[in-house]
């Protein structure tokens, strides 16, 4: 994650997300997938599977993972890293929930994701 002070953008309410499930967030810099687990944890990843670019936001969320709806890659929500034996990483974004609102640090994608995408 970025070490500088995060800039938080309000992107919606926790209840805008299915539980457990994901939803696409459109931004000028590209689509972000927002996820909510059955424990109400929220995660954000670039909406692009490291396998063949499928929209992760459309996948099935289980535990702290999402399975891509295209070819079944399993991605760890916190890190964006594909679950072994698959390899690759979807770029993670910093995200927080306060008073039911979801905030994403849209600039946080630049760090820690040198291996993102293919």
């Amino acid at each position, binding site marked *: 994650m970025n070490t500088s002070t995060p800039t938080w953008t309000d992107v919606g309410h926790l209840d805008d997300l299915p539980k*457990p499930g994901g939803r696409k967030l459109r931004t000028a810099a590209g689509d972000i997938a927002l996820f909510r687990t059955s424990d109400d944890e929220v995660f954000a990843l670039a909406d692009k599977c490291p396998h063949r670019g499928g929209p992760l936001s459309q996948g099935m969320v289980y535990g702290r993972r999402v399975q891509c709806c295209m070819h*079944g890659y399993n991605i760890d929500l916190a890190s964006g890293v594909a679950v072994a034996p698959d390899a690759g990483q979807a770029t993670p974004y910093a995200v927080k929930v306060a008073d039911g609102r979801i905030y994403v640090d849209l*600039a946080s994608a630049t760090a820690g994701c040198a291996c993102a995408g293919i």
Partner: protein
Amino acid sequence: MKEKLVLVGNGMAGVRFLEELLAVAADKYDITVFGDEPHGNYNRILLSHVLSGEKQFDDTVLNPESWYIDNGITLLAGRKAVAINRGRRQVIAADGTIVDYDRLMLATGAKPLALQLPGGHLRNVLTFRNIAEVEEMLRVAKPGRNAVVIGGGLLGLEAAWGLARRGMNVSVLHLMDRLMERQLDAPAAGLLKRSLEERGLSVLLSAETQGIVGSGKVEGVRLRDGRTLAADLVVVAVGIQPNTELARQSGIQCERGILVNETMQTFDPRVYAIGECVEHKGQTYGLVAPLFKQAKVAANQLAGAGFARFEDSVMATKLKITGIDLYSAGNFTGGEGFEELVMEDPARGIYKKLVIRDNKLAGALLYGDTENESWYYDMMRDGSNVSELRDGLLFGKGHGGDAGHSGHMALAAMPDETEVCGCNGISKGAIIKAITEKGLFTLEEVRAHTKASASCGSCTGKVEQILAFTLGGDYSAAPKEKPLCECTDHSHAQVRQAIREQHLTSIREVMNFLEWKTPDGCPKCRPALNFYVIASWPAEAKDDPLARVHNERVHANIQQDGSYSVVPRCWGGLTNAKELRVVAEIAERHGVPVKITGGQRLAIPFIKKEDLPKVWKELADNDMMSGFAYGKAVRSVKSCVGKGLCRWGTQDSLGLGIDMEKTFWGAWTPHKFKMGVSGCPRNCAESTIKDFGAVGVDSGWEIHVAGTCGVRVRPTDLLTKVATAEEVKEYAAAFLQLYREEGHYMERSSAWIERAGLGYVKHKIVECETNRKALAERFFAAQKHAQVDPWVERGAQGALPEEYAMLEIADMAA
């Protein structure tokens, strides 16, 4: 009060029987098992690998003691049953334990034939039958020491090879003039002898043992011709005989083995027997496949179903010596009325012989190249006519073009770069590398590590073959019922049973009751559970959209670019100007083409997710509804025009096609379910590759089931013939319902019928009218809750925003 079932014999056949029984009638019996050996059930076939050091004992365990506990079975391991009191229905063990039974299963196996030889009692003279003996051998088996194996049959040679791998100097003594004379002819036996000698074994043929010498422990083996061979270990493997002692003593009819009929019942109707101890129609069995069949038949009988019968099967043998490929099956000796096709290539060490009678394959003997064994075996079992294949028969299935790609290509001969898995671009070399470097043993492991065969699955057979030839004898396809997924230890059948018996109507209830290991389940089990509860309790279960696979959740097919295709119903494949106009206008408005699908429907592709509800609304406003082209559900009914238009037509196939689609739409099924209706046997609707097909004939309709034409091609099986269209619908409803109740999630009807058996399905649907009507009734009762058009719900009535709209940020901060 449960009935009491006692199993004597805790070996592979007996325990397989219990597994089969538990799968179909888990609560029918209180089960007690007597086993001579002091542990659970292990894979005796792999003993030779434990001996050779290629496996540990733990690797061979099939059912640890915990399995017995989990299934409520009392295991009396290490307690030998010594008598049966059939009058009182009791089994008595050597330690005095007495157990009552209502039904008794004998699976006492076989014991090694003893040689009455002087010195046979000496220490380190062993047979090769159980793990205790293997452990004995391993205590003596040190490099440089001498071992003599008496008996050059399958078991003797595997023992010899194992001891040689341990560094011993091994001599094999065989009474006959060729090795494995029951499985091999002279040329193949000669090749085998040469291979063994190249591996350092010494083979003495026509060698009669006169006695074993030594004081206290063995020191040598003396032959009739006067020679004496030094020996620190002697393994006697001269054959096995059915272990009938217990049965015989208690007055149960035995000849060579315990006599059973085709339901595996002995002369005492309360006593059944299976496995190596059994004799059926004069034949005894020592290989695992027919024994497992017996186990299945016996389970079917004791579960009370009572329709399965044991039939003689083709016997096949494979030698498990690394690097020696040897396979023999059926009658390979030929004789009067038989023809022989032979190919010999001594330089490459290849010998193949096929024996044909009346244009059917009667036997096969393969040495050095066993690539096509399963192809030959299938033809023998099915009694296929091979006259047209004769030219290339010896060269195998890949010869002369592999039409249909369904078969086993000559994988061993293919270069490493050859692409095996087309979906994921995985080569043969990559698979072999993963198997050897990562120590993979199962198909699942290969799938997880390489993705090969993990997508469409059409290359599964090839991947299994690569596993088989990479691992040699170490690979045995797991025939066990596997857990549904990693979140549970329960199999599909067990989960379904719990849902029915415990009246579980939601995924949460199933997970709680069966103590799921993960809180949310996983993408494998959640959709399966959702289907199972809906199929079992259609009036009560509530659909969980978040447990649906993506396409079913959004009611459209996602495409590679993330857009969706919309496929409305055209009943029976018939459309009209009005519907065409509606579709045309939508296509024009969105600037997209229209594709005719394989199921005779119109697909509107490239629709964005957020536009789906409004497209559906437009369709619904014009009385067009969802075609369910995205679902594990009843899909379209393909039809030809039938006798109303066609000069050949014998029946109104179009009318029935429309009627069928209107009757059956909306039903969820374990996997997609396609139907076809043809008006005459020319079969223009291709009904004989559908899950359910009706083909019109002059006198009525032929009903065909369980076809598929996708990743694999399987023509349908003819179920029966009926006179009227109403009966076709009744059979379709019954077939659909049986499949819905018993098919595993993600199992096409074609795979299900191969698992359940056509005979079983016929029994349930054709032979038993009451049952057919009951199935159909259950189907139609469920339809009342199923026929809801999701597009109307979401289009006309409005979709929830989080279902189809995305979130957007008006003002970008970054």
